[in-house]
């Protein structure tokens, strides 16, 4: 049986967003020669700018990747691009090329050896006999395996001393590269306030793109994306110096956390890793202990970044019946990615609920999660979720930010009245206080119309700019409320 991943599954394998974005460009049939697939593998030669085409082979079932390009990304854009092309049915079945066959045979031999040794198959060492075995991870090797090991800091399974030393060397090299990148970035941050935010170079996109590119090289993709978002704030309004200094300070904090992860509590270290850009394999997340509950789909937001649409779906556990004092809500954030021509499809529709296992990515204030096993079909929710008072909701957001100060979004569900302050500024207000709505929120009239001047339940994302409403519950009478996406 042929294994064909979906576009979304492929993009989720990407080590960071740059790789995913680059992969979209690579996934053009014209870039490939001798591309083919069979039941077990996909392969092709990527015609690059260099003289020799890169040889790409992917084993589908595992999946495992091999590419002869010098990139250090795991998997690299060529592997992802070929897999994307395959996901879009752009690769025709063909006879296996010799380089693919040789690689698959080596893998088979190695796996057999591993099985014999009863070793953990996750981190398969490259046999020393392999002709193109090189110390660099990116050149050859079981890349998906290395991602898992590096991201989780897993202790290496038993192997021959030589392999062990080589693995250790790779890990050290990678850690050194990150460390050097972080130190350089922190110096860059300090230089910005040393020279002054009024310096002309800050207004040039090049300045930011260069530093973002350096961070990508240092495998800090998460930081690179944040840097690009800070760049967009320069000159945004009169008070932009405040915004930019805030973001530079938070980045400085995050970098210093990342340079000291060894001395941080494990949860916090995981959160710092995730924010700087280390990815965790989906399989590893799904291997964790799940939380089983009934989940209500409360909101969805979509943002275009580079050439990729990122969709955030917010789930919240429904309070068990009979709870008098509503406990702090349990949130889960499911991310999905789409590209042009492969538009996103929502697995979870706002206003529905279902029973499922949720697996969180590691972190001190875990939000990002994967939906594991489903225990029921989705049903339309008839009741609005519990909305908190403004004061309580801000308290909850405050706790999350105190734990992970670099959080960019915190989900909130409140019950309040949209109220104008004048000058086009709006807040959501109740007796306990007021929460500013993000400036320029374009569905304001709908929100106000549904509210009719009375309190409504609103779910949205807190950010440093204000509250972005995503869903509001309209009263249908007879105790029934329907979710209206804003």
């Amino acid at each position, binding site marked *: 049986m042929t294994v064909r991943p979906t576009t979304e599954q492929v993009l989720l394998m990407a080590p960071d967003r740059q790789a995913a974005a680059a992969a979209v460009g690579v996934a053009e049939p014209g870039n490939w020669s001798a591309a083919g697939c069979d039941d077990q593998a996909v392969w092709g030669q990527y015609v690059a700018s260099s003289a020799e085409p890169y040889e790409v082979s992917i084993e589908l079932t595992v999946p495992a990747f091999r590419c002869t390009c010098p990139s250090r990304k795991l998997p690299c854009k060529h592997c992802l691009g070929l897999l994307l092309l395959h996901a879009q049915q752009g690769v025709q079945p063909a006879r296996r090329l010799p380089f693919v066959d040789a690689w698959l045979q080596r893998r088979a031999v190695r796996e057999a050896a591993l099985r014999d040794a009863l070793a953990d198959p996750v981190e398969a060492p490259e046999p020393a006999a392999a002709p193109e075995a090189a110390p660099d991870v990116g050149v050859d090797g079981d890349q998906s395996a290395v991602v898992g090991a590096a991201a989780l800091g897993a202790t290496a399974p038993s192997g021959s001393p030589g392999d062990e030393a080589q693995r250790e060397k790779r890990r050290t090299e990678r850690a050194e590269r990150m460390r050097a990148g972080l130190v350089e970035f*922190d110096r860059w*941050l*300090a*230089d910005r*306030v*040393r*020279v*002054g*935010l*009024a*310096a002309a170079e800050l207004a040039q996109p090049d300045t930011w793109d260069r530093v973002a590119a350096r961070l990508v090289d240092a495998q800090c993709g998460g930081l690179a994306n944040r840097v690009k978002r800070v760049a967009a704030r320069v000159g945004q309004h009169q008070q932009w*110096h*405040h915004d930019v*200094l*805030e973001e*530079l*300070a*938070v980045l*400085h*904090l995050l970098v210093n956390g990342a340079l000291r992860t060894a001395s941080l509590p494990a949860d916090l270290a995981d959160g710092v890793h995730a924010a700087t850009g280390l990815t965790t394999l989906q399989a590893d997340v799904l291997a964790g202990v799940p939380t089983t509950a009934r989940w209500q789909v409360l909101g969805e937001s979509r943002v275009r970044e580079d050439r990729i649409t990122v969709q955030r779906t917010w789930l919240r556990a429904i309070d068990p019946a009979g709870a008098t004092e509503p406990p702090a809500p349990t949130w889960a954030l499911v991310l999905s990615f789409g590209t042009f021509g492969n538009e996103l499809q929502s697995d979870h529709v706002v206003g529905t609920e279902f029973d499922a296992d949720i697996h969180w990515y590691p972190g001190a204030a875990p939000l990002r999660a994967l939906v594991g096993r489903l225990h029921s079909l989705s049903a339309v929710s008839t009741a609005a979720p519990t909305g908190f008072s*403004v*004061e309580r909701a*801000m308290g909850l*957001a*405050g*706790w999350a*930010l*105190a734990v992970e*100060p670099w959080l960019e979004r915190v989900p909130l569900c409140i019950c309040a*009245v*949209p*109220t*104008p*302050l004048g000058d086009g500024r709006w*807040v959501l*207000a*109740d*007796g*306990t*206080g*007021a*929460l*500013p709505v993000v400036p320029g929120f374009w569905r*304001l*009239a*709908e929100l*106000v*119309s*549904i*509210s*009719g*001047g*009375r309190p409504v339940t609103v779910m949205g994302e807190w950010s440093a700019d204000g509250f972005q409403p995503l869903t509001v519950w*309209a*009263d*249908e*009478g007879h105790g*029934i409320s*329907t979710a*209206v996406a804003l």
Partner: protein
Amino acid sequence: MTGDLATSAATEWSALVTTAVLGAERHPLPAAVEGWDRWPGDADPAVALLDRAAAVVVARRAGAMAAAPPTRPLPEAPPDSRPPCTTACAQRLARIVGGEHEIVLGEWLHLCDQAGLQLPAPLLPALLLRGRRRPDLDLVVRRLAGSRATWLAQVVPELGVKPVPAPPAKGVVPLGPVPPPPHSGAAAALVLTQLRDGRATWAALPQLQQLVAGLTPDALASFLASLGQQAATALTARTSAALTDLAEFRAEMLREFAAASPGAPNAATLPTPAPAPPDPTGDPS
């Protein structure tokens, strides 16, 4: 964060921003404000600045208190005694406003009026905005929304809709259902014949749509039944599909309104797919 702490944080922050804008190498970093001086200062003034800024940012974000409630609350919308529109009807209107079969918009509003239901609040802004360019639509929407439209236009000036519309120009007729053909049964038969003999090409679609949108509920039901029985020719396949879609859309809309108004005749025992709400055409011919 409240009181003194908020004040001292603001003082500390403005000092930090001033130095950051001018540059720590030109403008000396002032000593920390009391309460914000607990961190050992870095030897490098730029790093010290970032350290201190991070402390203030985290304290302010995590410790943000809700601002005081506005002194002038939003006035409540005038009460509306009509029952709210059902979810099914509201979703139907959302699809129409979103561009599906806009030809039945007038009929939807008419049915809503007949059933005595409120206009769906989430769609009121979109209908009012559309009414700015269509006086005939605006007349109906304003009448159905009543004082709620005025209220919304007043409290959300950002919407750009006049609270009280200018009096309509002479000759503007409120948007209503598509007028029925003189004899619905004959019109349906004509469309079916044209589909069968290949004259109902894509070019003829607008006229045919006009006919189908105006059929009486009874004629619409029998038209749908006959459509299902006859195969379209290659020439009329697309037209046939488009007309079937429109007819089904209308039939579903009529069923939804029949279900939404329990007082309407036959609502409980309505046979599907035959729709029998109050006759939207008012004239069965």
